[in-house]
């Protein structure tokens, strides 16, 4: 009974301090929005108007049509038409253009015979984004006036679907972002929770009260669970309204998976807090966790494509499991019971981190 009273006392105090701390408060709302904008829009938005030049040795109806279509897509802007492929290369070398289009004089014949590539795209491949743009340009269909065009267009349509990044990224990113934002904020908030008391000199008072380690840790975690859920709701709501990401599965299951994931991150943060000597150290350690989480969890790169060691590391990170859960539920409408292993992994992680944190927290100064 007194135990509950003390947990409540710590919670009460934490909430009060939190409400005074404008920066943290701003981060609760600001962080998800900023991340949504950064990841959602930056990746979603087309690259537009790369500078380009072309050489059209065919100068046929078909080749002129192609150049016009490419320009109309607004991906590239044709600044100039040059006389030879050699000039294109020179421009590319000088950095004057990012993309060069070379149409040979037998262009029409090549298109019909399809024995050799009909045209060449010269690309400054140092920038992967530009490379991606080239791939999209290659997907622009050749429009024939004759009936043969039907067949041609169908083939091109396939390519176009494959390379269309728009649908894929926004949908994939928003649920993934729930995990990234929660990792960033939850770990950060609790990682400074204990060490801040140490730094501000409150610890000597706190450890002289009857509060037990477990009570203190729970009291520090609970307020942030609520905050995590607020962030979850915010991201999903913005995802739905702005990026039109629907939730295919059950909302309750999203809540359940997120709850366990939030607890895992908060426990990890507390553990960091009992290890760190200063708030600055705590932040460094948080970053140390955050980076592999972003890179290895499948948020950025497909999990299957990573080397085995990276996959093994990723299995330890809560975000990896959460990504599977949230994408499964939100995108595929999967049932949480199908991913019981990931739920269990998060549960075990939480229990282990919290136990360690409680054991490490010492009501002594030495």
């Amino acid at each position, binding site marked *: 009974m007194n135990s509950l009273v003390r947990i409540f*006392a710590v919670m009460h*105090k934490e909430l009060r*301090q939190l409400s005074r701390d404008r920066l943290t408060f701003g981060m609760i709302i600001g962080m998800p929005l900023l991340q949504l904008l950064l990841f959602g829009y930056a990746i979603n938005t087309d690259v537009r108007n790369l500078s380009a030049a072309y050489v059209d040795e065919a100068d046929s109806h078909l080749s002129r049509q192609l150049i016009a279509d490419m320009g109309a897509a607004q991906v590239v802007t044709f600044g100039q038409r040059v006389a030879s492929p050699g000039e294109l290369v020179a421009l590319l070398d000088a950095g004057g253009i990012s993309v060069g289009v070379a149409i040979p004089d037998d262009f029409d014949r090549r298109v019909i015979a399809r024995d050799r590539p009909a045209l060449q795209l010269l690309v400054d491949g140092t920038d992967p984004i530009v490379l991606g743009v080239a791939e999209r340009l290659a997907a622009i269909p050749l429009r024939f006036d004759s009936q043969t065009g039907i067949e041609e267009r169908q083939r091109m349509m396939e390519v176009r679907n494959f390379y269309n990044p728009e649908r894929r990224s926004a949908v994939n990113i928003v649920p993934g972002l729930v995990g990234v934002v929660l990792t960033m904020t939850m770990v950060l908030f609790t990682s400074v929770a204990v060490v801040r008391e140490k730094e501000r000199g409150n610890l000597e008072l706190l450890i002289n009260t*009857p509060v037990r380690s477990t009570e203190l840790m729970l009291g520090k975690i609970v307020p942030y669970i609520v905050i995590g859920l607020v962030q979850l709701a915010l991201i999903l709501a913005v995802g739905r309204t702005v990026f039109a990401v629907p939730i295919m599965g059950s909302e309750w299951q999203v809540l359940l998976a997120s709850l366990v994931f939030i607890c895992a991150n908060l426990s990890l943060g507390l553990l960091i807090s009992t290890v760190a000597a200063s708030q600055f150290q705590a932040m460094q350690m948080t970053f140390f966790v955050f980076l592999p989480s972003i890179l290895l969890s499948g948020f950025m790169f497909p999990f299957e494509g990573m080397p085995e060691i990276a996959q093994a590391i990723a299995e330890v990170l809560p975000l990896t499991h959460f990504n599977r859960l949230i994408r499964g539920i939100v995108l595929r409408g999967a049932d949480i019971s199908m991913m019981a292993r990931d739920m269990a992994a998060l549960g075990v992680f939480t229990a282990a981190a919290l136990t360690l944190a409680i054991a490490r927290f010492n009501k*002594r100064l030495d």
Partner: protein
Amino acid sequence: MKSNIEFAIQARVLTRRFGSLVAVNEVDLDIPSGRIFGFLGPNGSGKSTTIRMLCGLLRPSAGRATVLGLDAARDSEALKNRIGYMTQSFSLYQDLSVGENLQFIGEIHAIPRRERRRRVGELLSRYNLAGRERQRAGTLSGGQRQRLALAAAIMHRPQLLLLDEPTSAVDPSNRRDFWEGLFELAERGTTILVSTHYMDEAIRCHNLAILDRGVKVADGSPQALGESIGTHVVEVRAGNADAAHLALGKIPRIVSLARLGSRLRAQIPKQTAEPLAIVGEALRNAGIEAEINTVFPDIEDIFVAVTELREHGPIDRESGGTPIRNPVIPRGVAESRAETAPARPRDSARDDRKGDHGGRVEDSGR
């Protein structure tokens, strides 16, 4: 919870090392219940370290302390509810208000709401903080903070109060009130251990221990300490104090010479039969007119005698006294003394003290 143990604190060869530094060196303490016990000592003498061991925050390197009948290191949790500890540096939450801080302390001690409110109100008015309930603790003045910290330390009605320099920033008038409060608490049976740099506070304690570089060099009531020191104290009032200072500084028998405005206090070993004659002769030889008296040693004299003179060993009487030491000791125990109360009018403070000496200390003593 009323206990009838004779000694609230008993320590035996209590020792604490930090690496090679012995911060507290084989200290024995017997602090009777219901008394105010003073800890006097210069900076770094081990006062805070001893107090931390007594409340279980630091483990002793050797020796043990029994506090309220319990082992301070082993049963520290059981002691939390029975000890009130006021840290040397402010350790309440600066971003919470005065009222919120007290509320938190009340909650963490699981004091029922109605009772808690009653006590908070009572403490606020007792410590002159009524009307500041909503002020952030971080914006309080130094003395207000210390009054708040004391209020927080006694919120749960502890049997034993450990106060680490509770009045270092409190002005003389508030200090008087502060001590009135301590006496009230002591009358109700609370044992109080208070560390201080202030002589006028030390003299108010029933008993005193003087620490020097981790070693307890003296222990007893102010009266007993005064009688036990190995020197006579001669007070000199001279028209030309500078000249008197110079003249007396040449006398080997005078082992300590301290200056207070126009007055000087000289310490001469007890073995010397006629201390007044020595001083009188020295002054006459220098042609200085002065009024001289033997006086009862005050706390500063005691302090100088037991700390400054300790290291120089016994005085060699037969050889006519090689100068053991003739320091021009700054009036004031420690450097921090000078820092915290440089402008105190010495003479009035002195007279105060004499009053206290004959009055309170002896009344309230055994």
